[in-house]
C-alpha cells in the first residue's frame, strides 16, 4: 500500500513537472502544486484514519454534486434513500480502491482547472495546454483502468494478479508522460 502511494505521488509529481516546463503555464503549475499539497495531506490523513472516517472524507468528493441534482429533479425521500444507499454501498469498497478514486477525482479537478484557465487566459501555447489537460485526463483514465483491474468484484479479472495490473499501469503512465514531455516542446 505504501509503495502504491509513493508510486502514485511520483506519477503525480512527474506530470506536474511536465506542466511546469513551459513558463506560460505557470499558473497551471501553481494550481497543481496547491492541489498536490492538498492531495498529500488528504492521503496522509486518510492512511492514518482510514478505519474511522471514510464517509466523512469521501462524501464531499463523490456525492455532493449528485445530491444537489437529485434535490432538484426528483422528490426528496427517494433522493435521500438513494444517497444513503450510495453512501453505504460506497463505504463497503476497499481502501485501495478509494485511494485510486481520490486520485482520479484529483486528476479530473486539475484538468478542469486547466480548462478554466485556458478559457480565461487563452490557449496560446496550444501544445502545452493540450499536454497539460491530456496528461491529467490520461492519468485519470489509466487509474480507472487500474481500478477496474484490481477490483475484486470484477469477475473478469480474477486471474489477473494486482501486481501485474500495477506494472502495466506504471508502464502505460511511463509512455504517456514520455510522450507528454516530448510534446511539451
Amino acid at each position, binding site marked *: 500500500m505504501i509503495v502504491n502511494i509513493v508510486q502514485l505521488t511520483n506519477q503525480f509529481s512527474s506530470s506536474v513537472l511536465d506542466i511546469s516546463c513551459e513558463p506560460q503555464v505557470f499558473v497551471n503549475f501553481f494550481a497543481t502544486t496547491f492541489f498536490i499539497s492538498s492531495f498529500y495531506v488528504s492521503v496522509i490523513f486518510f492512511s492514518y484514519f482510514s478505519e474511522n472516517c471514510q464517509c466523512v472524507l469521501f462524501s464531499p468528493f463523490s456525492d455532493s454534486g449528485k445530491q444537489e441534482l437529485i434535490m432538484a429533479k426528483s422528490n426528496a425521500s427517494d433522493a435521500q434513500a438513494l444517497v444513503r444507499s450510495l453512501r453505504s454501498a460506497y463505504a463497503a469498497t476497499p481502501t485501495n480502491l478509494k485511494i485510486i478514486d481520490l486520485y482520479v477525482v484529483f486528476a479530473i479537478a486539475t484538468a478542469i482547472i486547466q480548462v478554466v484557465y485556458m478559457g480565461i487566459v487563452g490557449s496560446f501555447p*496550444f*501544445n502545452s495546454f493540450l499536454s497539460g489537460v*491530456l496528461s491529467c485526463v490520461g492519468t485519470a*483514465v489509466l487509474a480507472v483502468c487500474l481500478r477496474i483491474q484490481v477490483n475484486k468484484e470484477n469477475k*473478469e*479479472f480474477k486471474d489477473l494478479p494486482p501486481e501485474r*495490473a500495477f506494472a502495466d499501469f506504471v*508502464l502505460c503512465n511511463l509512455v*504517456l508522460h514520455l510522450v507528454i514531455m516530448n510534446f511539451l516542446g
Partner: protein
Amino acid sequence: MAASSETKGEGTLRKAFGGVLGFFILLLIGALAFSIRLFSVIKYESVIHEFDPYFNYRVTQFLTKNGIYDFWNWFDDRTWYPLGRVIGGTVYPGLTLTAGSIWWLLNNLNIPLSVETVCVFTAPIFSANASWATYLLTKEVKGTGAGLTAAALLAMVPSYISRSVAGSYDNEAVAIFALIFTFYLYTKTLNTGSLFYATLNALSYFYMVCSWGGYTFIINLIPMHVLLCIVTGRYSPRLYIAYAPLVVLGTLLASLVPVVGFNAVMTSEHFASFLVFIILHVVALVYYIKGILSPKMFKVAMTLVVTVGIAVCCAVLAILIALVASSPTKGWSGRSLSLLDPTYASKYIPIIASVSEHQPPTWPSYFMDINVLAFLVPAGIVACFLPVSDASLFMVLYITTSVYFSGVMVRLMLVLAPAACIMSGIALSEAFDVFTRSIKLQLPKLFESPGSGDIDSTQDEVVKVDNKAATDKSETAPKERPSKKNRKKEKEIVETTIKKPPKAKRLLVLPLEASAVAILLLIILGAFYVVHCVWAAAEAYSAPSIVLTSHSHDGLHVFDDFREAYAWLRHNTDVDDKVASWWDYGYQTTAMANRTVIVDNNTWNNTHIATVGTAMSSPEKPAWEIFNSLDVKYVLVVFGGLVGYPSDDINKFLWMVRIGGGVFPHIREPDYLRDGQYRIDAQATPTMLNCLMYKLSYYRFVETDGKGFDRVRRTEIGKKHFKLTHFEEVFTTHHWMVRIYKLKPPKNRIRGKLKKSKTNSKTNPSNSKRHSNLRKNPWQ
C-alpha cells in the same frame, strides 16, 4: 471438440506438434509473401517504381545522408519553384524512417547494401509482416486454423500485391501492416483486458499515423465498434480498457507527427473518437453504479443519470458544433468529404478527381483484385455471427465499412483486401472443420460395413490427408481464449457435447460423399485463387511503369525512354535550370534528373498547378510568357502517339484544362471540345490545335510516317505541318515518349532581313544535324 474425448497426455503432445507445424506454416507463408512480390525484380530489374516511390526514395537518401534532425528541418528548394516545400513537416515519415533504420542497422552489421536496394525490398518484407499480423488478428477472432488460412490468403491477395511488389516503395507498403497490427492489438486488448496491450496498441497506432493518412480509418472504425458494442449491450470493462487509453495516448502520439500536429484535435475526422470517449465514460459510470446499487435504487438513480447524461451530451454536442463551425478547415478535408459523398470530388476538386486511383472502381476490378474472396466473404460474415463475440463483431464492422470505402475509391480496395482475406479465411476454415469432422465421424462406420470400402478407397486417401491437417487445426483452434466470457462459452459447448453427444454430432454431420466432394471443390477453388494470384503478380502488377515492355511478333521490345530523358536532363542542362512538366512527372524529375521542377505529385498548391495547366492549354506566346515568368528553361512533355502508350499528356490534357480553368476563367473546357467530344484530328477546334500541348506533342510528328497517325487516339492528327516560334526542340527520346523543349530567349528588336537570315544559317546546320539523328523512326 475432438480434444476433449482424448487423453490428456496425448492431447498436449498433439498440441505441441500442432504448434510447431503452425510455426513452420507461418514461416512458409512469410516466404511466400516475400517471394511472390519479386517478379518485378526478376522480370525487369531492381528499380523503384512509378511516381511517389521516387519521392520517398529521394527523402530516404536525404535521411541516410544527413541524419534525422536535418530531415525534420528539410526545406526543399528543388520543387515547387519559386515556393519550395517544407518536406519534414509535410511528409508521413513512417516509411522513410523504417527504410532508413533498416539501412542503418544493416550497415552497422557490416552488410553494405545501397539505399535503393533497401527501398526496393522494404515492401515485400512488410507484406510478410502483414501476413503474420493477419494470422494474429484472425487467431484473436476465430482461432488458429482460421488464422493460418487468412494469413495464406493475404500473402498473395492481388489487391495488396499491386501496392507492395518489390520496388513499389510507397506508404501503403508499411501502412497495411500497421493497420492490421493495430487491429490485432485492439482485439487482443478487448479479449484480455490487459493495459499492457493497450499501451502497445497506442504505439502501433502511432506507427500507423506516421506512415499513412489512412489512419483516420482506424480512429473512426474503432469508435464505431465501441458504439456498436454499447448499443447492443455488450459493454464490458475490457472495452473501456481497450478504448479509453487508446484515445488519450493515440491523440497525444498523433500530434507528435508533424504532418498531423494539432489536426489530431482540430479536425472533424477525429471528433467521433472524442464523442465516443465521453459516451463510454457515461456508460461506464452507469454500469458502475448499477453494480454497487440494489436494482430498486438503481431505477431511481437511472432517471437521474440519464437526465444528467443527456444534458452532458447536449452540452458536448453544442461545443462540438461550435468547434466544427470555427475550426480552420471548416470541418472535413476534401479527401474525407469525397469519401462520404462520392460525387463531391468530381464536383468541386478536379485535382482529386483527376487522379485515376481516386475514381470509383468497376465491377471487374473487384474480381481482379480479390478474386474468389468476393464469394467467400458472405460466408465468413455468417460464420462471425454464429457465436458472436466482441472481436468478430469488430471484423464484421471492418468488412462492412471497407466494402463501402472501396466502392468510393479504387485506392481503398487496399483496405478491403485484409478484411476480405480474414473473412474468407474464417469461412474456409469453418467449412473444412465441418466437412472433415463429418468424415472423421463416419470413417469407422465405413470400415465396419464391407462393400463400400473399395469404391471410396481413392477418396479415403485424400480425405485422410485432409483429415490430418484439419484435426491439427481443430485442436489448436479453441485453446486461446483467455477471457472469462469466452471460456464460459466453451464450457457451455463442452457441456452440451457431453450431455447430448449424439444430437450435437448429428446436427453437424453431413453425408460422407457430399463432404468429400465439397472438400475437393474447396481445394479446387483455392487452386484457382493461387493460380490467379500468381498470374496477377507476374503479369499485371509487376510493371515498374518507368520501363515498359511490349511483346510483338518479332520479340520483346523494351521502352526505356523515361530514364533516357531524365539522364539527358541530368547531363546536358545546368544544375539550377527549371523544368516544367505536368505534375505527374515532378517527383521523377527531381529524383532522377536532379533538376528543379515547378509542380510535383504532392499537389498542395492548386493555383500553382493551375498555372502550369493554363500554360499548357494556351497558345504558344502566352504560354512562353507564363513559363518565362516562372523562370522555366525546359518544358517536358510525354507523348505516346508513336508507340501507343496510352497514359500520355494528350490524354491527360482535359484535366489540365479543367484545373487551369478552375483558377483562370479564360480557359474554358468547351473551347477544346468539338460537340462535347475530345478529338485531335481535322475536326478538332482551332483552340485545341493551337494550344501548347498539342504543338509540343505533335511537332514534327508527320515526319515519322508521312501521315501523322496517332496510335493511341487511332486517328491522323489535325494539324500536321507547323513551326514553333518560341520553343525549340532539344531532345526527343528513342521512341518519342518524352520530348524536351527549350524556351527560346526573347528576340532582339532589330528586324533586319540580313541578320535574320544569318542567324538562320548559323543555327540551321546544328539543328538539322540533330534532327537527322532524331528523324530515324525505330519502327521503319
